């Protein structure tokens, strides 16, 4: 870590500055070096809808609406938002906000940015997934924007959380999308309202950011932030241990128990929304050596669920980096229940159900799981195989590399598989998991179980456009109950936890959506410096 003896005093708020300076001096802080788990492919906030790219964007740019670590929505560039018509949301923008080049932020910038997203070419993962259903954005006056959606869209503010607002003046250009991705990568037009400004990007090594003097919120504790890309988890950890970096993303789960005991370090771990579940393909016509597909029978599916000891999975196999669950909605999502009860494993009941279904001696099937995509994925698959084995279902495991696994999954080669799903909007999750499978936007994107219940699909469509929160939550819970408890379309296992490890004199609360933002890293003990609402 580099030490800067000189303490730079932020201009805007002398009180905060004094406190920060007092705390920062003994830390020899001011520069924060971060061990990131990957490198963004571009600095263009409209290029790639992948976590690592979005993390970097959120240092430089801001969305209209943001959320706290617990995923509760919070104002960012918009201070209030409301539905004015079933398909029109109105956002009141924060006044007095300036871009880092000093120009004022207005509704025109919002309209420009939302429009630009859909025009960025060559993207391997277009940001359009977050702008689905947006018909158009209109500036009503300099500080009011209306966004019209194709259908009533209660989850719009949540989706906007990932859409960054750029400066219209600086990011406009002759290309259809204005400044191109290549130009933005070089820093040209990379002007946002966020707490940091871009300084340099040394490909493959690091991105350097500096404090934005124009930032409207409380100034971040760091004059300079270095985001260093260390993809190998062991290398990331050794960089932290040797003092090369101050805080790291995603320490390897195997190292966590040891890290928590280390007096020099601090670990912040939270459950994410990523659900790990077993999918059972009840539609496969041919089944390994059997006349009929046993998974068609709900009793078999239920037996397979009952045979699983989620507590053992969570504590022993996942080493507490998983939060065991019997449902699919994470506690912090809309309709989620904190402290949900776990059904105990019931081996006798599972055997009885299998007998009733006509499989007293069980059967044999393949369980597919990726190796390296999710935390301990192949270990979890082994544990599931042995739990099913005790109930009489023999499992042949197939845990290939991630890319091969998905190739096989998409081809429906697995009668049963372990997969993960990590979105944040409950109604979207219901659709992705349980809506009938197909190629259209409204179909179940990850429904490789080919679960098809017309009643559930209808409820999903209804919930997605229900504007009343209570009614929507009731619907989502009913869908979850029908699909998971009654039909056993999937067998939920756990929600993955995510962690950050840091020097013990830093404070950071890991976010459930795994988006890391340096502005929330504080020297330990600093006065809580939450952004004002």
């Amino acid at each position: 870590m580099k030490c800067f003896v000189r303490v730079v005093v932020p201009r805007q708020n002398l009180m905060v500055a004094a406190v920060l300076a007092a705390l920062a001096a003994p830390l020899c802080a001011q520069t924060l070096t971060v061990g990131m788990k990957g490198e963004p492919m571009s600095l263009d906030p409209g290029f790639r809808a992948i976590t690592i790219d979005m993390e970097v964007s959120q240092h430089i740019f801001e969305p209209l609406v943001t959320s706290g670590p617990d995923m509760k929505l919070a104002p960012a560039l918009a201070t209030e938002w409301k539905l004015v018509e079933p398909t029109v949301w109105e956002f009141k923008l924060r006044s007095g906000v300036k871009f880092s080049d000093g120009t004022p932020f207005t509704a025109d910038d919002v309209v420009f940015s939302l429009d630009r997203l859909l025009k960025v070419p060559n993207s391997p993962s277009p940001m359009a997934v977050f702008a689905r259903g947006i018909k158009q954005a209109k500036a009503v006056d300099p500080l009011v924007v209306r966004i019209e959606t194709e259908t009533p869209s209660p989850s719009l503010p949540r989706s906007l959380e990932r859409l960054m607002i750029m400066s219209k003046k600086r990011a406009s250009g002759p290309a259809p999308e204005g400044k191109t991705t290549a130009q933005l990568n070089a820093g040209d037009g990379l002007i946002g309202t966020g707490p940091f400004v871009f300084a340099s990007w040394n490909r493959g090594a690091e991105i350097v950011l500096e404090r934005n003097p124009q930032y409207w919120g409380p100034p971040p504790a760091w004059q300079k932030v270095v985001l260093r890309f260390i993809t190998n988890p062991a290398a990331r950890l050794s960089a932290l241990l040797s003092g090369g970096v101050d805080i790291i993303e995603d320490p390897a789960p195997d190292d966590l128990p040891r890290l928590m005991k280390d007096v020099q370090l601090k670990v912040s771990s939270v459950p994410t929304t990523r659900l790990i579940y077993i999918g059972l393909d009840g539609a496969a016509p041919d089944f390994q050596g059997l006349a009929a597909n046993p998974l068609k029978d709900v009793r078999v599916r239920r037996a397979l669920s009952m045979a699983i000891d989620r507590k053992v999975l969570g504590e022993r196999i996942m080493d507490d980096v998983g939060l065991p669950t019997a449902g699919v909605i994470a506690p912090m999502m809309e309709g989620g229940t904190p402290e949900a009860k776990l059904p105990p494993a019931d081996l006798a009941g599972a055997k009885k159900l299998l007998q009733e279904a006509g499989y007293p001696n069980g059967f044999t099937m393949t369980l597919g799981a990726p190796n390296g995509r999710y935390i301990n994925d192949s270990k979890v698959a082994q544990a599931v195989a042995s739990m099913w084995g005790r109930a009489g279902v023999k499992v042949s495991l197939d845990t290939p590399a991630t890319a091969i696994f998905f190739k096989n999954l998409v081809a429906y080669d697995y009668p049963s598989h372990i997969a993960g799903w990590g979105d944040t909007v409950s109604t979207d999750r219901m659709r992705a998991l349980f809506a009938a499978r197909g190629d259209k936007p409204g179909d179940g994107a990850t429904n490789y179980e080919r679960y098809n219940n017309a009643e559930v699909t209808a409820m999903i469509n209804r919930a997605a456009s229900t504007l009343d929160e209570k009614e929507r939550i009731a619907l989502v819970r009913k869908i979850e109950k029908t699909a998971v408890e009654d039909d056993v379309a999937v067998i939920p296992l756990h929600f993955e936890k995510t962690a950050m490890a840091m020097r013990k004199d830093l404070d950071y609360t890991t976010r459930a959506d795994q988006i890391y933002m340096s502005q929330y890293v504080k020297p330990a003990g600093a006065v809580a410096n939450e952004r004002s609402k």
Partner: protein
Amino acid sequence: MPAFVLSRLAQAAIVLLAVSALVFVGVFVIGNPVDVMINPMATQAEKLAVAQSLGLDQPMWMQYGRFLEGALHADFGRSFLAGQPAMQLIFERVPATLELAVTAILIATLVGVPLGLYAAVRPDAWISRAGMGLSIVGLSLPSFWIAIVLIMVLAVWAGALPSSGRGETRELFGIPWSFLTIDGLKHIVLPALTLALPKIALLARLTRAAATEVATSEYMQFARAKGLRRSRIVGVHMLRNLMVPLITVIGMEFGRLAAFSVITESIFAWPGAGKLLIDSILQLDRPVVVAYVMVVVAFLVLLNLLLDLTYGVLDPRIRLQARAA
């Protein structure tokens, strides 16, 4: 001589074509890049749109044909992930890799060759025995293990050296280099040592074996009989005759260091081309993988050609012929 060079270049073109086909088929069977690259929330329609925009909806032979057509115009495709020309991404990383490889091979040569010579001249000295003993260890240890031990001892316990990244760089000819700053030099020590240790061992053993053989030859005895100083005998008469095998091995090992220091770069987060290759393979960024292999093959072929030409200079008895393979 020009005929020799021309025929070697023609051979190189055929090798490149064959390798490109092999690699193309290889990366093709791994899986569908769209499934790995896209945000999992994307629908089938959105995946299809991305596949079309990247040309992945075409059959393999069409994609290969398009790649060859582009390659003839020096266009090796755009990275799926970054949207930039694959060659540009690779050449941005090459200086870092070369810097590391040159440093490692310099350390290996400056330590390994003298050690080998000394061991040949004074086989019973303790330093010879220790050096040769350790060289067996150096040769048999895998580089990732050496890397981890170096990190544990020198970075984590002693806190003497940084364990990741390139450190502070300074520009020369518009390219950032680490060896021009103190901080950068500190960063290069551990990865360069990791790469150099097995090469030191290799060069020391090779030099000793070759030197022992040369030592008994008549011209060496003649030189001794003339009463020449020992340093001159070893430094001029002996070393000169070791040059051909040494240059061959040093050149080839340098090629391997530059092309395949993938693991070391990834452990030390050294932003070189090898790390780019690993990241690209994991993310199925096919154009980068194919372009990288093309660059490496071309580089190794040229390096070999250069070595062959050097023999002629070092040893006038060697004549190069068009037929020589």
